């Protein structure tokens, strides 16, 4: 199995990561070990060769799309350290939800005045307040997956390098919105892709970044968010990524069945030897 396919598999199991204690091949990209302690750079070499294997973690394709997924044998965490973290997360999710609701209602108010009578609308926020994901179990699971992606050196570097107001939609990875209604498969796919995109900001290794391209092809892009692989200008040049072009990708926004849009982007910004 290629390194990147392994990573993809691992990504699908991110919601159960905290129950799998075997270090993975990509541990060196994680900011924190499974016990929560910060990783230092010297951990990088040691974990490269270890094969990721844990009997409790199964690929998410084992589940039917709408079910809640395989039940972990580890069960609910009963140690006090974990209970506190879980309570904290629950509280944070509730707070997030209230904040999000307020934002949506505010947007709805101003939207109603501007809405046209044409069939498709660019943004479908008008009914989003009613169509929000509110199931706590789902939100917590999604939050855990998001946390797993944010708990990476790549995310750290990304947020430091690209402040929010400079982020371009489609170009820069965007954290999936846990409050939107998505099928389980769609959500898991979005998370996967988001994390793939984030890998562009991985701390430099000898292998270079060209493996990301192969990974995109393998993923099989059905109902996914747009992928525009415009790599950031890295201080250490990865010339292999310069001649990158994406293929036609179908963009389907789950919420608003608008017209599918093909996105093709071949231009790479500021790469020294671009094609």
């Amino acid at each position: 199995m290629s390194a990147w396919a392994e990573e993809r598999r691992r990504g699908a199991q991110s919601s159960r990561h905290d129950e799998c204690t075997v270090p993975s091949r990509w541990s060196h990209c994680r900011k924190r070990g499974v016990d929560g302690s910060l990783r230092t750079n010297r951990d990088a070499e040691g974990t490269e060769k270890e094969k990721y294997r844990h009997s409790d973690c199964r690929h998410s394709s084992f589940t039917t799309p709408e079910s809640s997924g395989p039940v972990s044998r580890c069960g609910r965490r009963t140690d006090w350290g974990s209970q506190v973290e879980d309570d904290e997360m629950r509280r944070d999710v509730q707070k997030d939800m209230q904040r999000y609701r307020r934002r949506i209602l505010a947007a709805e108010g101003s939207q109603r005045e501007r809405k046209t009578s044409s069939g498709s609308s660019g943004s479908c926020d008008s009914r989003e307040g009613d169509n929000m994901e509110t199931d706590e179990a789902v939100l917590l699971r999604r939050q855990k997956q998001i946390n797993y992606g944010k708990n990476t050196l790549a995310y750290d570097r990304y947020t430091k390098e690209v402040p929010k107001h400079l982020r371009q939609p489609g170009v820069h990875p965007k954290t999936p919105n846990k409050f939107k209604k998505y099928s389980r498969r769609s959500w898991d796919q979005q998370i996967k892709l988001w994390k793939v995109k984030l890998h562009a900001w991985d701390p430099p290794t000898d292998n270079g970044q060209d493996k990301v391209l192969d990974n995109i092809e393998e993923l099989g892009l059905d109902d996914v968010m747009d992928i525009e692989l415009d790599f950031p200008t890295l201080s250490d040049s990865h010339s292999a990524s310069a001649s990158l072009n994406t293929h036609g990708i179908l963009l389907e926004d789950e919420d608003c069945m608008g017209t599918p849009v093909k996105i093709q982007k071949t231009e790479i910004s500021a790469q020294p030897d671009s094609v």
Partner: protein
Amino acid sequence: MENSTEDYKIQSFDLDTQMLLKTALKDPSAVNLEKVSTIIVDQSLKDQVFSKEAGRICFTIVQTEAKQNNGNVFRRNLLNRLQQEFKDRKETRERSLQEWVCFVTFMCNIFDYLKVNNVPIVALVNPVYDCLMRLAQPDALVNEEEVDCLVLQLHRIGEQLETMSSQQMDELFFLLRDGFLLQEGLTSMTRLLLLEILEFRAGGWLLSSTAHKYYYSELAD
């Protein structure tokens, strides 16, 4: 506003350890937090004075670590160690009343200080009640050490505990009333402490000024 390190009552530690703790308070990422939590818990089980105030230093380290790098290594280690001690409480009490009392004091102090979003840690509520009810058993009420510990905790965290679970507080006070009324062999000091705590709770976790005069005026001299 920074607490001077005297507030943390770390004088009982040797100088090297004091240095370690001071570093942990300022720069948690620079120390082995698992080691720090072990040191703190170990000392709390031995040192009565420290067990009453250790919560404060723990809270500061938790806050600082969270602010510094969003971590919770210290908190996790601390709580899990505490959980282990809780599991072993029966043996601890049999081995040493002093250690048992220190443990309860420490755990309640953690409950008091380590809040999450200003709410006490839910996972600690039942364990704390479990310990207090143990202290209210007949075989414990005959030990002034244990009664002393019990009323101290109720003074400090009784109100918060009741908010988290009033039913268990009611149960606890049934035991205290029974003990006060029915149990033979209690010293007058013990009865005094029990009576005071009964009045304290009845007054909404406040002692009326006249009751205060009755119970505490002697101390003024």
